[in-house]
C-alpha cells in the first residue's frame, strides 16, 4: 500500500475544499493507504476541540434538530476508520499556526509539527497533494 500526503490550508466552515479533502482522506484510508495530513494556517482549527454545535434560530431548529456538524468530529471519525482498517493516519498541525490561533486543544490523535514535517512527508510519499486556499 502507498503513502499519501495531503496539505490543507482552509479554515473550518468556509470552503468546499475542506469537504473534498476529507473525502480524499476517507477514500485513501478505505483503500488501505497510509495518510499523512499537514494542516497549515487556518486548517489547524479543523481539529480544535472547543468547537460547539448550535441551534439555528432562522431555521427554528433546536441544537439536536440542527445537528450542526463540526470538523473535529469528522477527524475523530477518520481516526476511528484508520483504526478499524489497520492503517496509519497522521494528523499534523503546524505548531506556529496553532499558537497564533490559540487552538492548541485538539481532537485526540492530532499532533504538532512544523513545515519540516510537511517537507519530509511530501518527500517520502508515493503521492502528494496540496490544497491551497483561493
Amino acid at each position: 500500500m502507498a503513502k499519501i500526503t495531503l496539505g490543507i490550508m482552509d479554515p473550518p466552515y468556509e470552503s468546499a475544499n475542506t469537504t473534498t479533502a476529507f473525502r480524499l482522506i476517507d477514500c485513501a484510508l478505505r483503500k488501505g493507504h497510509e495518510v499523512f495530513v499537514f494542516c497549515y494556517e487556518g486548517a489547524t482549527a479543523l481539529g480544535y476541540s472547543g468547537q460547539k454545535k448550535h441551534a439555528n434560530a432562522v431555521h427554528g431548529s433546536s441544537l439536536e434538530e440542527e445537528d450542526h456538524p463540526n470538523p473535529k468530529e469528522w477527524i475523530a471519525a477518520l481516526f476511528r476508520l484508520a483504526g478499524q482498517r489497520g492503517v496509519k493516519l497522521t494528523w499534523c498541525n503546524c505548531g506556529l499556526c496553532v499558537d497564533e490561533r490559540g487552538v492548541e486543544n485538539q481532537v485526540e490523535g492530532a499532533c504538532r509539527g512544523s513545515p519540516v514535517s510537511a517537507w519530509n512527508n511530501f518527500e517520502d510519499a508515493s503521492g502528494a497533494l496540496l490544497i491551497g486556499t483561493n
Partner: protein
Amino acid sequence: MSQYILIQSKSAWASGGVADFYAMAHQLAAAGHEVTLFLVQNGVLSARAGARDLHLSEIAGPRLRVLADDFSLRERAIDAERLAPGIAAAAIGVVVDLLAAGARSIWN
C-alpha cells in the same frame, strides 16, 4: 513520461485562471504525459452538455482524460448521463489511485 493529476475546483466563469489551467493540461498531454483533469466542486459546472465553456470537450483526448466528480455532480443536480462529449463522471477514488501510483498533482 509522467502521470499528472490536475484538479480543477473552480468554475470557468469564476476565474480567468481556469482557462490557463485547462491549457496547461492540454500542453502536458501534448508533451507526451498522461494527464487526468479532474473537475470537482464548482469545477463540474463546466462539464454540463451545452455549457458555454472554454472547449473542455475539445482538449480531451487519448492522453488527457477529463473526469467530473460524481459527488459534486449530484450536489449540483447535474445528470452524469448528460455531460459534454469527452467528459465522464468518476468517483474521487480515481484521484487517490493516481496519487498512490505516484502521479504529480496540481490543485486549482
